[in-house]
């Protein structure tokens, strides 16, 4: 699946498994595998707890290739191999046959320093532990063969010069095996350990079960990309630990290791075989809802990001799932529990972000409240009323109406429906200029136009809500060459003077989730072939280049003709792979649009 001789490598996905914080990846600068415990948002080459992996024979480092499937990673040499798998809790299992393994803490510049390791020491129960401060501790338990830790201290620098851990095969069997637990406070070794092959088989069965239970089959011919995307999603799911109160989907594994609020709902959208799971993901951030109704922007192992917030995307995802699966998954208990929570979230927007016209028009204070971080619509400032924001509110009102109806609160249901229709009327009159959706600057009363793909996002309202003339106009516009490239839709028209493919996020580059949203919108509006064409182009590119967030559609800037200059990986850009945000978008296109 991933490997030296495979279509995709571990530079395009990370090897991990659901519920584990262990992550193995191939370095971006040299063909070498790294191993880390990833609980924070620290970028790969600034991480303090990354080990590089070297198979050894009699102490000599051997060249190797590798292969990873769903359940295990195998390093292969001429002398033997080393295998890795994980359990669904805190354990990494390492097994070597014929060769040893040297783990070398990535300490050389520019990758940081060994200062992240604070000590390697024996424990009273016969294991060894490496302490990486807040990043983690690793408890090494020898099961076969032995290991040797070397960590010379540099008195002048006040840190280790290097940290190396050598796993040495038994002289009798030629094999070694070790369990390594990651943890943050105090942990003793387990009394017994499952066999490696049992642990591996459990990983495979857990994945199979996840896919079978939750996902529909992909369009024919797309099985490899489907498995790749499904694996990315499965391997980024958390267990209940730290600040994670439920299973959630992390954005990345070795950078920005956060469960972003709206991305939980993105991750729900492909769960068409299991609307209950989709609904659970749409609900999960409500476990963190604060009394004023607001939902934090993110959750990580360590933190709940209450300083900001993300769009009310839950209702969009809910609307999508209901449009495909119906709403039989809603139980009375669900409705009882969630109705007041959704009303609280909606009312937060309707009050704390009310635009002050005496109705339900709302605005945003910053780009990050829309998810379109550098949208050209915002060039004249904030607060601004936007069509995507209105669409979220309309769907949130409809969601509340549905839940109220299920609870027999018919008056409330009707009231929400009425308000939804009124806001929809406002959207298609006040924020539609006859040709396109526009923004409205509340403070000045100025209408703002732009050439962003965001102006098509209201298509997600579907043909049940949007007038056909608007659907037709938008569908025709978005398929023009100014938006549609060989690899999908650009986020800013190629004819816009602001469009560029360099450092920005949604100011030109082809961004996978934005394409999915447009495809879903077109699909919901009955423009099936348009939706499929976009999806096919996007997915073909994802298969060729990996499941990334964003791509430059050409090597030259559309406005200047200059070569595109962007950050090289690893860096915090949309070119960074291994993201569930893109993988969930890909799965929606593969299983629902291109079916």
């Amino acid at each position, binding site marked *: 699946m991933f490997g030296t001789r495979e279509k995709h490598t571990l530079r395009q996905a990370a090897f991990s498994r659901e519920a584990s914080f262990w992550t193995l990846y191939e370095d971006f600068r040299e063909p070498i595998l790294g191993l880390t415990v990833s609980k924070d948002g620290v970028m790969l080459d600034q991480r303090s707890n990354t080990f590089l992996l070297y198979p050894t024979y009699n102490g000599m480092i051997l060249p190797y290739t590798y292969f990873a499937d769903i359940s295990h990673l195998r390093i292969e040499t001429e002398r033997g191999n080393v295998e890795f798998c994980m359990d669904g809790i805190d354990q990494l299992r390492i097994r070597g046959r014929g060769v040893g393994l040297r783990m070398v803490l990535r300490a050389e510049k520019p990758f940081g320093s060994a200062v992240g390791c604070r000590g390697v020491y024996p424990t009273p129960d016969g294991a060894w532990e490496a302490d990486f*401060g807040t990043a983690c501790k690793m408890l090494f338990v020898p099961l076969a063969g032995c290991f040797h830790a070397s960590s010379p201290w540099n008195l002048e620098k*006040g840190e280790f010069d290097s940290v190396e851990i050598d796993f040495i095969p038994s002289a009798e069997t030629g094999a070694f095996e070790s369990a390594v637990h990651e943890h943050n406070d105090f942990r003793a070794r387990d009394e017994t350990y499952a066999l490696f092959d049992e642990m591996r088989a459990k990983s495979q069965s857990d994945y199979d079960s996840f896919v079978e239970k939750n996902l529909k089959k992909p369009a024919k011919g797309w099985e490899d990309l489907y498995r790749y995307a499904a694996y990315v999603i499965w391997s980024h799911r958390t267990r209940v630990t730290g600040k994670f109160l439920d299973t959630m989907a992390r954005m990345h594994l070795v950078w920005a290791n956060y469960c972003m609020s709206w991305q939980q709902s993105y991750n729900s959208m492909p769960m068409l075989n299991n609307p209950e799971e989709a609904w659970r993901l749409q609900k999960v951030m409500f476990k963190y809802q604060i009394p004023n109704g607001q939902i934090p922007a993110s959750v990580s192992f360590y933190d709940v990001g209450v300083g900001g917030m993300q769009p009310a995307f839950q209702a969009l995802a809910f609307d999508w799932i209901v449009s495909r699966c119906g709403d039989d998954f809603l139980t009375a208990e669900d409705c009882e529990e969630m109705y007041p929570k959704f009303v609280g979230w909606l009312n937060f927007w309707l009050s704390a972000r009310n635009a002050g016209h005496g109705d339900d028009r709302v605005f945003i204070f910053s780009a990050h409240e829309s998810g379109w971080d550098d949208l050209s619509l915002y060039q004249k400032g904030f607060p601004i009323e936007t069509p995507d924001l209105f669409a979220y509110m309309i769907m949130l009102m409809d969601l509340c109406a549905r839940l109220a109806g299920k609870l027999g609160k018919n008056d409330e249901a009707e009231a929400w429906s009425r308000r939804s229709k009124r806001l929809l009327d406002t959207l298609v009159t006040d924020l539609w200029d006859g040709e396109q959706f526009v923004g409205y600057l509340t403070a000045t009363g100025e209408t703002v136009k732009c050439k962003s793909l965001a102006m098509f996002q209201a298509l997600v309202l579907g043909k049940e809500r949007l007038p056909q003339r608007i659907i037709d106009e938008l569908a025709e516009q978005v398929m023009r060459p100014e938006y549609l490239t060989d690899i999908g839709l650009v986020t800013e028209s190629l004819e816009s003077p602001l469009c560029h493919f360099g450092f*920005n996020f949604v100011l030109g580059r082809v961004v996978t989730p934005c394409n999915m949203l447009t495809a879903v919108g077109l699909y919901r509006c009955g423009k099936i072939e348009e939706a499929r064409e976009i999806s096919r182009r996007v997915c073909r590119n994802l298969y060729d280049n990996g499941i990334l967030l964003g791509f430059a559609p050409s090597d030259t800037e559309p406005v200047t003709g200059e070569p595109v200059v962007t950050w090289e990986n690893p860096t915090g850009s949309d070119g960074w792979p291994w993201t569930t945000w893109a993988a969930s978008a890909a799965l929606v296109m593969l299983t629902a649009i291109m079916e």
Partner: protein
Amino acid sequence: MIGSVSGLDLTRIPFGRTRSRFMVFEENNADREERRPGPGKVMRQEYPVQREDPNDVDFARGLYFAVCAQGGAAPRRRGLVDIAPIYGGEPIPYTYTATPSHLRLDTDKGGVRIALDTAKTMRIEGKGVGVRLYVKLPFMSMMNAQLLPSGVVEYNLRSVYAGGGVFFFKKLKGEITLDSKFDPALNGPAYVHAEFLPDENGVFEVAAYSMSPDEWGYIEYEDFDACVDSAEREFGDFLAKFPDVGAKYQGMKELSAYAMWISYQAKSSAPILPTLKSDMIYADMMREGQARACEQPLYSMALSDTDEAVKLLGGNLAHMQNGMLPATISDSTPNFRAFPPTFGVAALRLLKNADAGAAKRAADALYGPLAEHYDWWFKSHSLAKDRLSYNTRDEYGFSASSYSALPFPIETPDLYAYMILYAEALAEMSGLVGDGKKDGWASSSARLLDTLLTLWDGERFVCQGAVSGRRYASDSLLAYLPVMLGKRLPQDIIDALAGRLGDEETFLSPYGFRSESRVSSGFDTAAVGRGAVDAALQMMATGGLFDAGAVDLAARAAARLLTAMEEFGARDSLTSEGEQPVRRPADDFNPIGCAAMIYLAEKLHTCGKGAAV
């Protein structure tokens, strides 16, 4: 001399309020170049240039509004907001006066007053002049500011890079303007420039609030003068919890108490899964932004109020997981690692000073979790019966100490001393709670004392490799901390320790005890834990000498330290001879230095030797 609480020098100590994360300090780029204006005299020059690396920058000199960024090194220059009085649209020169209750900026055209109201609210009012707030935002930082309805300005400086908090400034009188333009090409605004302008009566008033509002009328605030009065009263109440130190050190005591007061941070108000679960004193507000576990008990030793001391001593226990405590804690990430177990030495002092009722209350509150934590040491740090070792170089509290040259895990005299006192304190508390384990704790303490004495080589205590059994002589002051044990040690050992400590060529410096012997090859006069005079170690070494009966030496060391602190500030660490390093602004009073100052001043005062040294 260093000023007083009636005229705080904000280049040396921030203006703040207990349990509040708001601060105002005077930026003088002291850590960039050696320049320090006289207190209270500031001339606004130009807008600051805040580049991408906030630690490599010359800021415009003047007052800055900041929050204590949570957790980790070097947060001082995150999320800073430049404050300047303005008139006619331009910044004007000003002077300032700060007290624990409020900060006043005076200009030729009028004045501005700033007070901290609730823990989350700051109040700003002006007469005759306005105020400009300015901050330059880093590229792609996700920070921004908005002018909201009802005249509220939101500063969202809480990005992954800044961690500077979210603030809402609500106008109560006058006008607020905001200039902060979103630039798509920059992925956000480049700067935030807000002005609070007087109304037709020449007055403006603003309430500043941190974190998310429930609604636009959310900001609760008191009458400005009531707020000033309550801050003054609250500080007075806190000051009364410290012992009498005599007239000579009264001013320093007040400044030190003030620094501890503003560093006392409230448990998290986060509605979900708070990290900081109890009120604790942060190691400092400007630099570190977190509480150090080993220092909380030491802070308690500076107090005369037993109940307050119990709160401090036990503050960290709410964070225990699997018997383990975090060594540092804030509203950010807790760092679970071992730290010097100072609980025993502090608890024994507390129990000794408490009346029967207070001692019982203390035992009821502390005994259970402390016993669990004591046991954890043996589960995690004991490779042989009745033996304990540090696993890493972070665990003894001074990672640069010459201990760090030794192979780890390492058995050290200081660890045994801490644990002997820890077990003894548990024995006393066991007696008070009546769980029948008093003798067991006492026996554990005695066994550890026996083990410690095996590390005496006839001249000094040595360290021992926990795996190899090899012994290592050490010139670290840490190896002399068994002096804390006082009369529990044989007199010849006390005499030997005191003799070495009192030797000016080794440990006794002009400013107190060096953390490393001057004759050690590793000695560095400025290195924390390896030559500098570290406040925490002064408390234990000097305090121990007092208790061991070496009063003359103890008084001499204490007086030297206090004299140095009068000149340089109650710092956590002082260079042991020569010039003191220039520090970041407002970083001259650190709570551990302040606790040492008060603790030793009280010892000096009560031993009657103060005048003689």
